[in-house]
């Protein structure tokens, strides 16, 4: 038989296989379970609430661990959580909480005041990073199984909220102070609407519903978070129905998705911001000597064109920023008059550097230290897990070049970024934060005491900058009960920090998300109308969703494939018949 025919037959066989798979995919369905699939472009770092710092961790904690009080979805108002009621003492420093009846962990062990007291006291004693700023002054006492008393040593504006995740004592007491630091937190004992089921870090993690959840079993049986290394692919998966909702969609895709029927785009404001931070010089390692000069810092700060970055990198989906945003509520950001802002002004930057004596003595376009020393070449850490960071780095390289500063980029993931910043091995980096509702935690991060104390240690002060006056103001607002006075203090400390040019907030941006309207309903934005739907402060959406009709797998793409498959199968069948008929006829010619 001629090889050309063999070629054709082989090609047809392949087509048939394709056809079969397309048809099979159209027919296979998800079974009886109601599954919500979430697409996300980054993976979690740890499900241990005392250790993890990245955004994906928080949603899982919100789902697995209930807190004493909860926050309303629409306005963050304090509502009952594990505690159904609470009472204040006369001096306002002690609150007595009454837990609901019949609370149980998912493994059947009752949830009691003991668990609350254990969590609070241990977090305070061992200075757990994610808890400490909330519990540092609190002592918890379990009065009986359903009553727990929290006493603060100072007047504390954060009582009675206490939104720390209550952990099951019988699981977590097995890990001592040393072991708990390396425990990955993957277990299915929780009190929230869902608990962890399967985790494959870097690929996906899934949570199963908790039928004994105090607020009622969720309508969704399973929630799967799927990691997409390429955000573009994630958008395509959303459009084809492979996933139901996507977080952190690329700015470039927003317009396209807005024009796609059946998909809703959400620009969720919850105070998120990105900053271009300089090495403040008070950490474990000093930066390039030029950066210790406040004028050089200001020169760099003047080389940032925030509006262009918002227009180009964020495709307009953000607002140029001044100070950091310490809270999901914008009221905590001070109004800085334009005349006092650090504007994009390359001439001013060049002037500052000229006056500082940083001349370009060898004519290569790069300035040197006064007296012709080291050239001004800054190490710039680029976050490979961020869509925006490499692009911002491109812009900054261009602007810094125009003021005579060279840039050496170093790419790394967020894990390594955290270490390098803590060790002071950098001059510039870009990263971002999503704050809580109360500004205190975010503000606490920039105290002198929060700078990394040892190599590869934990820290929060990624400005590596120490300002005793800032610390003083922080302690004042920490115990200030009058909201207006407190706000004034916060405004003052933020403005002070902003004007140093060490920590330059680039923009306030919302979380870009999109969801399909044909699979689930009940999407809650937190706060109402302006917030995101998932990865919010308390993630109320998951427990609120209900499925729409029966979920069919795939979507339009598959039915086209099925048609192609059937056609291909028919052609292949016909060709094979022809082949066999001809074969018999030519049999006589064989040797």
């Amino acid at each position, binding site marked *: 038989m001629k090889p050309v025919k063999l070629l054709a037959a082989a090609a047809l066989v392949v087509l048939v296989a394709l056809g079969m798979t397309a048809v099979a995919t159209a027919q296979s369905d998800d079974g009886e379970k109601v599954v919500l699939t979430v697409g996300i472009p980054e993976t979690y770092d740890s499900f241990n609430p005392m250790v993890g710092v990245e955004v994906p961790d928080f949603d899982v904690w919100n789902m697995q661990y209930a807190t004493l009080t909860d926050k309303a979805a629409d306005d963050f108002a304090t509502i009952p959580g594990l505690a159904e009621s609470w009472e204040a003492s006369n001096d306002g420093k002690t609150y007595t909480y009454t837990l609901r009846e019949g609370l149980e962990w998912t493994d059947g062990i009752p949830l009691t005041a003991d668990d609350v007291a254990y969590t609070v006291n241990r977090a305070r004693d061992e200075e757990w990073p994610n808890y400490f700023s909330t519990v540092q002054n609190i002592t918890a006492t379990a009065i009986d199984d359903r009553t727990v008393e929290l006493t603060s040593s100072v007047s504390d504006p954060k009582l009675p909220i206490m939104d720390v995740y209550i952990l099951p004592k019988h699981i977590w007491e097995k890990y001592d102070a040393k072991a708990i630091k390396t425990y990955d937190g993957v277990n299915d004992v929780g009190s929230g609407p869902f608990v962890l089921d399967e985790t494959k870090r870097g690929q996906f993690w899934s949570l199963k519903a908790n039928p004994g959840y105090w607020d009622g079993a969720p309508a969704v049986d399973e929630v799967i978070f799927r990691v997409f290394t*390429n*955000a*573009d692919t994630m*958008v*395509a998966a959303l459009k084809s129905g492979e996933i139901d909702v996507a977080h952190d969609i*690329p700015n*470039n*895709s927003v317009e*396209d998705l807005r024009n796609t029927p059946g998909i809703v785009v959400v620009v969720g404001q919850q105070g998120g911001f990105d900053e271009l931070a300089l090495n403040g010089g008070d950490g474990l390692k000093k930066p390039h000597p030029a950066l210790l000069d406040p004028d050089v810092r200001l020169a760099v700060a003047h080389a940032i*064109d925030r509006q*262009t970055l918002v227009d*180009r*990198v964020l*495709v307009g989906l953000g607002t140029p920023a001044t100070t950091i945003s310490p809270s999901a509520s914008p009221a905590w950001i001070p109004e800085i008059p334009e005349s006092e802002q650090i504007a994009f002004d390359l001439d001013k930057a060049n002037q500052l550097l000229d006056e500082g004596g940083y001349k370009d003595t060898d004519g290569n376009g790069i300035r040197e230290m006064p007296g012709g020393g080291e050239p001004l070449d800054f190490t710039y850490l*680029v976050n*490979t897990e961020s*869509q925006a960071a*490499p*692009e911002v*780095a*491109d*812009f*900054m*390289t*261009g*602007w810094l*070049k*125009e003021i005579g500063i060279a840039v050496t*980029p*170093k*790419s790394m993931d967020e894990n390594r970024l955290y270490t390098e910043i803590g060790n002071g091995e950098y001059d510039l980096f870009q990263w971002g934060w999503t704050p809580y509702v109360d500004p205190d935690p975010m503000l606490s991060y920039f105290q002198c005491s929060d700078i990394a104390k040892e190599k590869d240690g934990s820290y929060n002060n990624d400005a590596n900058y120490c300002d005793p006056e800032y610390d003083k103001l922080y302690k004042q607002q920490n115990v200030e009960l009058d909201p207006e006075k407190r706000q004034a203090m916060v405004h003052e400390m933020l403005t002070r920090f902003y004007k140093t040019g060490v920590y330059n907030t680039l923009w306030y941006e919302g979380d870009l998300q999109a969801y399909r309207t044909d699979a689930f309903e009940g999407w809650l934005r937190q706060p109402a109308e302006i917030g995101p739907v998932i990865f919010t402060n308390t993630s109320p959406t998951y427990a609120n969703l209900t499925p729409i009709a029966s979920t069919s797998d795939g979507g339009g793409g598959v039915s086209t494939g099925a048609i192609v498959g059937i056609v291909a199968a028919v052609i292949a069948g016909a060709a094979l018949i022809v082949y066999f008929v001809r074969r018999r006829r030519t049999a006589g010619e064989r040797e």
Partner: protein
Amino acid sequence: MSSIASSARGIAWQRRRRALARAWSQYRRHLPGMIGLGVLVVIVGMALLAPVISNHDELSPANTVDNPTWATPSEFPPLGTDNLGRSVWAQFVWGARISLLVGLAATIIAIVIGSVVGILAGFYRGIGSALLMRVTEWFLVIPFLPLAIVLAAVLGPSIRNIIIVIGVTSWPSTARIVRAQVQTLKERLYVERSRALGASNRQLMARHIFPNVSPIILANLTLTVPIAILSETTLAFLGLGDPTRASWGKMLEESFKAGALSRDAWWYYLPPGLGIMAVVLAFTLIGTALEEILDPRLREQRR
């Protein structure tokens, strides 16, 4: 034949010049080879003229703030813009420089190392030579891409490092070919005659082996350059290229990450791929033409 050269060396050079002229006239008749050469001349010319035919400033997004983003070639000739407003044409033209430079430089490193190793291993016998060949075979076996990735991840992404990485991982195949050729040449009569006349090993290698091996090396060079260019493209796509320079591989990386695929911004990902194809095909055609020509050439010289 203009001058009467009296020294033996003069005669030898004259012979080589004539051989070259003959080779060139033969090459001219080889159609695919001429096409390849033509394409290469056009692309190299474009790369060399980069400062003239495009604006280097348009490579930095800080300078293209007024350009529209994702402009099609008709909106922003000749090749449109990318997601940050940078000119795709500028990236293409300046990127050609990097792709060609890296390809050529890495190949030269590979060829030099490979030829030296091949000549030494082929000429000498004994433990040293056997060891050299063992090492060559070991390096042949190590898969190129993982080795290049490991080296690039450890050394850091820069033009210099990428050239070193590709050069250091590509020499073994040259070494093997050169060694085989040298071993064949060693048995040639004139080598034995020269040795009888008292020539040293070094003289033998320089005056007899090397000139006769150079055609093979040349052919191998033209076939190694496309491999080196494809390697640079792959490494740049994986994020290991120099982040401060445009190259064709980097264009593909950025178009992939910026979502050019889902919005079908063909002007961003088609040109670099087509450019690479053109250069690789050009070198391959030239290489096959050279091989065809040089084979009978060698046979002729042996007489």
